[in-house]
């Protein structure tokens, strides 16, 4: 299981990669993809959507079930990773490369963990 040090993590298993003070990339963690199993569909947000920290902004579906993806921050969707629509398996293959959305105008953060804290959290 991989926990890159430069990322921040949520208890709902999303990761956040800061680009600058008000912009960041969001995705799901290695742990999340491995728990969900083969991802076969992603319901992406749209550019311009306003998102709220700790609320659902996207959902991913495995063969067995659908899971909400919670936003780690409050802000506006600047860009979505449209390729994932056709190849949701990228989320399984490269969870930290397969970002879901770029969020701009970040005005608030939800509860975030460091890599170390998150690793400890999932091993509980």
């Amino acid at each position, binding site marked *: 299981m991989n926990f890159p040090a430069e990322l921040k993590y949520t208890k709902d298993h999303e990761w956040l990669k800061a680009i600058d003070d008000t912009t960041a990339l969001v995705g799901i963690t290695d742990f999340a993809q491995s728990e969900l*199993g*083969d991802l*076969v*569909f992603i*319901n992406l947000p749209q550019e311009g959507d306003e998102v709220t920290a700790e609320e659902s902004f996207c*959902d991913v*579906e*495995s*063969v*067995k*079930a*659908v899971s909400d993806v919670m936003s780690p921050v409050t802000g506006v969707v600047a860009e979505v990773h449209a390729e994932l*629509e056709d190849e949701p*398996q990228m989320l*399984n293959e490269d969870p930290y490369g397969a970002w879901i959305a770029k969020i701009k105008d970040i005005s608030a953060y939800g509860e975030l963990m460091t890599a170390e804290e998150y690793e400890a959290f999932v091993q509980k």
Partner: protein
Amino acid sequence: MSELKRTQLYDVHVAAGATMVDFGGWEMPIKYPTDIVAEHLYTRHACSIFDVSHMGRILVEGPEMVPFLQHVLSSNVMALDLNQAQYAIIPNEAGGAVDDAYLYRFEEDRYLLVVNAANTDKDLAHLNEQIKGYDAKMTVITGDWAAIAVQGPKAKEVLQVLSGGEAVTEPMKNALNTLQFEGRTVRVAKTGYTGEPIGYEVYIETAEAAWLWNRLIELGAKPAGLGARDTCRLEACLPLYGHEMGLDPEGKEIPIFAVPLAKFAVSFSEQKGAFIGREPLEKQYEVFKRVMNRDFSDLADLPRRIMPITLLDKGVMRAGMPVYKGDKLIGYVTSGTMVPYYRHEGEGLQTVILEETAKRSIGLAIVDSDTLEDDEVQIDVRGRRLKAVIPPYHMRVDAPPFARPILYRPDEETAAAASGDRTPKVLELIGRATQNHVWRQEKCVNLIPSEMSPSRAVRLLCASDPSFRYAEHKKVKSFYDADVFYYQGTEFIDEVEQLLVEEMKAFMGCAEVETRCVSGQMSNTCVFSALMDWKNRLNRKQDPKRLGYIMNNHIIKGGHLSAQPMGALHDYIAVDPVTERHALVNFPVLKDNIYKIDVEETKKAIDQYRPEFIIFGKSMVLHKEPVAAIRKYVDEMGLQTTIMYDMAHVLGLIGDHFQKPFQEGAEIVTGSTHKTFFGPQRGIVGVNYKKGDLKYGLWETIESRAFPGSVSNHHLGTQLGLLMAAYEMNHFKDAYQKAVVHNAKSFAKSLKAAGLDVAGDPANDYTETHQVIVSVGYGTGPEVAMRLERNNIICNYQATPEEEGFTASGALRMGVNEMTRFGFGPKEFDQLAQIMADCILRGREVKEDIEALRAGYTEMRYCFTEDQVAAALNELARKSGI
């Protein structure tokens, strides 16, 4: 919560890194590290193994086991033969399902009922209540035997390694067998829950379970979990209890007839008596029949039905999501997910399965019974109405060994032919016809055993004047059975027909011949229709009774299509009310040579079924049919059985070098005049009934079923051509027949020596007819046959008695008849065998070798070539402008 149960293979799953979940009280692998998508795809592409040891297994035995099972199951247990399985539903009093089940009959005196794991306790409580009063008992053996499903196109290959090459089961679905896998006893069923056309479930004693599991993995199978099992069954539209049976998303009980499989699983046979749920099921069935006829007037007993559903928009449907047609709620998704598949390209037999995969969003839904195929509907996917459609199915299995995903596509309109000048099309057609003629007649080696090129004389006569005339005629008793013709101008063809009848009587060795049927299949239809008519001749005031029991060769064991219920027997064979199947029994065949009838076993079957009609004859025919032995037995038994020999393929071999059917005791012989015989494409019927015989009336019925029963225009041109062919045959038959049989044996031996796998009895040099059968590898027949065609060798791929159907066929069927007529002898057939081995085994392109071999043999033999005949034919050609 009570502790979860574990199967015999629990430790194996954990060691393999499986994700274990609670499934109906059992701790089962939902997936392995490979994950569901890969496991699904490997099942479709190769072979997966599934631990199904959690399924409840109940042995039922005792003197009243059958009445008990008839009472508690929806199916007709009396229809279940030894070594067969059937799908059944356990109904409740209301016509809903307690569970669905599979009933296996591995042993004469015991049945094995397999039920859903999660329902086992509930089922047992229900069945224990019902068994009271029956002298029968149930024993749960779930823990004693493990069950492993082996599913996918490579499943047969894998299991045959373990069986040491022995056929694992008969190729038909639901066949069972008990055999040894490397010294261990196993029970194998050709059943499964993935929809795979090549799928087995193997039962083995608990102590050997892990051994078998690991051995299967060594042989290339991969483990798959319940997740892939679910996506596979969904793609195959197989119902799952709790989704498509039991309670629907509104909490209402789903009627059994809502499930498409109910059509097969429910029997209203008298044998079943007042079984549980019979009355409500009969009501559901009445609605079902009306719905099938699109009468939606009263749907109360079957308001909704389970249908497949495909999402057209992007998204995933899940069980419980509402389905709408316009604004109207019409039902709910009962199962749904995203299912992977391999893409394919090409059309028809040239379809190639690619390595590239994709996914599609499919499901099953319970929707209002007036919903039709192709209806556009919407699914409420978490607040969004997404477009969906009701497809006919998600997958088909009629082109084994692969299950083929069917992607929804609306019907395309074909472009109507454009108007305008047709001259260019005419020229193109003539040009292509010329090319085709030269290719088939001069460049190709034709090995199709059911084909023959006719001589120039036969061709010219076929095209000459009577070819577009009518000559309806019928014997009239008032004129002492003189033939009366309805049209004038028919004197010549009248004479031709009389001459043809005499020539054919002499050739076939019988008392009467009917020549008017224009195909072998029509000859059979004519005889079957006559037999049925004759059977009912003493009572015309009721619906005529059909024929049965009938004994024939099973189609998969070489039986001729036209002597099958799916062929010419279709409208004439009875249904046995006890088994609710066709009143048909097949000739048992020898274990070590499936191309030969087992005479001793056949006698036993005759004792048991006392058939009123026996049909010999095959389209994969390597050996003589035991007509004399069976005639003798039937006579000894004092049976009135009518014995017919459908000599479609071997008509031209009647005589000293093969068989004389009437001398051996056949009463009726039918045949095609263009396979080993020299004629144009027609059919023939011969009988050996003489005036004064009881069955002479049957002969007269055959005549009247030919005309007016089958033809009013009996193709006079080819009838004339057939007379010439009969002259040729009667003149040259000794040399021709001897050469054909000798060439076939010689060709078979050459093919064997060249490294090919030749079927048939080596003691007979593999064949006693014109045919030679070569195995080229399971499922590869179509590809090899197409490769040979590209190289100008024309033959046909053929499923052997061990294979599931034409696309799974692994054999080539060849005949030496036509090339013998073009002058091939053992030397040429030996050369051909070498070239074919090069092409088949080494993939060499051999077109030039074939054209060179053929070039020396374009002159027709065994026909009249004297100058005088040639001059007369030239005169005919000139005057007729042909």
